């Protein structure tokens, strides 16, 4: 029973529950619509999408949230999931066609009204700009780790929610730009070579701030002593683990991203060469793409 109650929200957030509920509903509806149209979708996609959604939800709306409020390193783990791992899973499940099929027709028409569509599209292009996206990605990490900003965010429920949602939304935007196939990205598609540069560029400042937090002998985040830690741990050890989480796995996600990008390049290449595979002559070298 204890474990069941741990699954309940520590601090119930109607917004968070509504957004996750809506995403799940759209996905399930889209799945059903596509099935009825006899379009088969491989089940691993639903599994990966569900895992991504569940991970993000779990760190925001279960007892984990209490631990994240009262332990610096758990908070860093929470952001590693919201800003890196969770969005990566969501994007890798290629959920857009399914979610799109799940949007009811009247809502889709509303989204396509020019004065709704145009500003949304402009905003999207701005956020997907190859310079703005990485600056926003790293900037948010640095911003919420400024000690005085961090202090206020941990004290104020609204700032805390804003912090977590800004990380999740920015994570989805950034990893979409990095990991989605080029043909799915439309007008704001980014070349694969440029993605590798961006992935490297965001890893470096994450290493810098993570290493600084892990190695400094100063206590940077007093809020955890002020409001109490979740369990007994020395403040320096808490800070060092938090710094390591910001430093190593977060930066490693750039390597994971790089592997996905290489996979995209290879599969595009394979598709380009695919027609020749059926060519009985077997001649493929030097064939025009």
């Amino acid at each position, binding site marked *: 029973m204890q474990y069941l109650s741990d699954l309940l929200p520590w*601090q119930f957030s109607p917004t968070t529950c509504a957004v996750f509920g809506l995403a799940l509903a759209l996905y399930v509806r889209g799945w059903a619509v596509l099935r009825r149209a006899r379009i088969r979708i491989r089940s691993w996609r639903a599994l990966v999408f569900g895992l991504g959604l569940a991970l993000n939800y779990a760190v925001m709306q279960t007892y984990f949230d209490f631990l994240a409020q009262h332990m610096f390193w758990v908070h860093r783990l929470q952001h590693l999931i919201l800003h890196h791992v969770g969005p990566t899973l969501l994007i890798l499940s290629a959920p857009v066609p399914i979610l799109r099929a799940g949007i009811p027709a009247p809502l889709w028409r509303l989204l396509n009204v020019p004065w709704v569509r145009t500003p949304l599209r402009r905003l999207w292009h701005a956020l997907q700009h190859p310079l703005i996206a990485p600056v926003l990605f790293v900037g948010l990490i640095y911003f919420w780790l400024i000690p005085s900003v961090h*202090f206020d965010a941990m004290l104020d429920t609204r700032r805390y929610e804003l912090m977590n949602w800004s990380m999740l939304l920015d994570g989805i935007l950034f990893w979409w730009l990095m990991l989605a196939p080029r043909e799915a990205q439309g007008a704001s598609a980014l070349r694969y070579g440029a993605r590798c540069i961006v992935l490297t560029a965001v890893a*470096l*400042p994450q290493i810098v701030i993570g290493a600084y937090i892990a190695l400094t002998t100063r206590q*940077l985040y*007093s809020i955890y002593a*002020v409001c109490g830690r979740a369990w007994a741990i020395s403040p320096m050890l808490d800070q060092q683990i938090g710094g390591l989480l910001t430093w190593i796995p977060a930066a490693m996600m750039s390597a994971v991203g790089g592997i996905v990008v290489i996979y995209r390049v290879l599969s595009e290449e394979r598709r380009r060469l695919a027609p020749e595979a059926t060519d009985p002559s077997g001649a493929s070298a030097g064939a025009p793409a």
Partner: protein
Amino acid sequence: MRVRALAGVLALLLVGGCVQRQLGHHLTNVAGLVAPLQFHMNDQNGAAVTAADYRGRVVLLYFGYTHCPDACPLTLSTLADAISQLGAEGHRVRVLFVTVDPRRDTLPVLKRYVNDFGPQFVGLRGTHAQLTRMIKRYRVSYHYEKPDASGAYEVDHSSAVFIFGPRGQARLLAQTGAPASVIAAKLRHLLAAG
């Protein structure tokens, strides 16, 4: 690359600067950050009380337990010192001491404990649900350590003193180490502002 290195250095300076600012003073303005005073509990005399019972007074809210070896007595005596510096105005201040160890802090224990610090000190004891609601509201935590051979145990808890104005609005947060004279000056200001 040079731009990024420069940005990194700037960010570190910013981080460093903020640290210095926080270490410099032990009182933080938390108006608009911390929720207004609200709770349902019993006071040390067993009477059911809510925040409304303390309207018109400047309230200092602190979470602790009577078996606390160091932090609680130190903090409460600093607050008692600050209140005594207010003279006659001190009667418009209340310190609400919320026990995070209601099992050992029965009402008589709590009463004896808070009375030692002065008439402005109120002991608050709630059910598990009431206490949980309060620690969620003020985003604080407590945690029981393993009991020793005699069954005695320590409780890790927050060190913050939340200070509310006479209308129950959160105003300040005092951290460990805030001197009584500084707290007294802030309390005088809050009392004068009404």
